[in-house]
């Protein structure tokens, strides 16, 4: 079963994806790595970030890997390149 979520791109990921936000349809349950592959299939240039990126799912950090992400309609998923605030 799929659901619609809002994906936000920041900093270098926004430059590579060429956009700052989009709504996409994804499985309600998938691994964080599968979610990343979903985004890369839409925006292949994102692939260079693979080793230096994490997600924020509903504003909590999730690293790329086997761990399951459960998503509901309207959830916010952000692509978080290395931080440089301060």
């Amino acid at each position, binding site marked *: 079963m799929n659901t619609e979520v809002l994906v*936000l791109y*920041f*900093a*270098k990921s926004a430059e590579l994806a060429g956009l700052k936000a989009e709504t996409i349809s994804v499985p309600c349950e998938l691994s964080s790595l599968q979610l990343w592959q979903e985004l890369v299939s839409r925006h292949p240039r994102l692939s260079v970030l693979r*080793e*230096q*990126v*994490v997600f*924020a799912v509903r*504003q909590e950090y999730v*690293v790329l890997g086997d761990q399951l992400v459960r998503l509901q309609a309207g959830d916010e998923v*952000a692509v*978080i*390149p*290395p*931080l*440089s*605030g*301060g």
Partner: protein
Amino acid sequence: MNDRDGDPQDIVKLTHDKLSADAVSEAVVCQSCGAVSMFIGTTRNNFEGKKVVQLEYEAYVPMAESQLKKIFRDIRDRWPTVRHICVHHRLGVVPVTEASVIIGVSSPHRRESLEAVAYCIEALKANVPIWKKEVYETEGSAWKENKECLWAGSGQK
């Protein structure tokens, strides 16, 4: 003069306006505190020999605010006498030598606020979703990476 001695205040502001040390110090000063410690992060004019003309900051604003509040809770766990905590972070274009972040912490005695400010800037750089791009005079621009960020690449560390 600020005499909000009733409840400890957690103050976060992400703003496109120029930051002010006086505004942060006034936000945290209180009648029962003898100490205010502050840290101001400013824009440097060079990186590896390239002349930096300005920086541009962007943030995932709601999460930046919630992560800062989480850091404030950690500070209060570690230094229970800390009184008020304030972080002002600038967004958008920041010219060289202007402040990108100002942190202020008040406490009855100085040790706690000094340690809390050092902890706060460290934790901010590691955990708060804010990014900066350096714009160089001659060679375009680059997104920076804090060495404190766990998933930063090793190249820029």
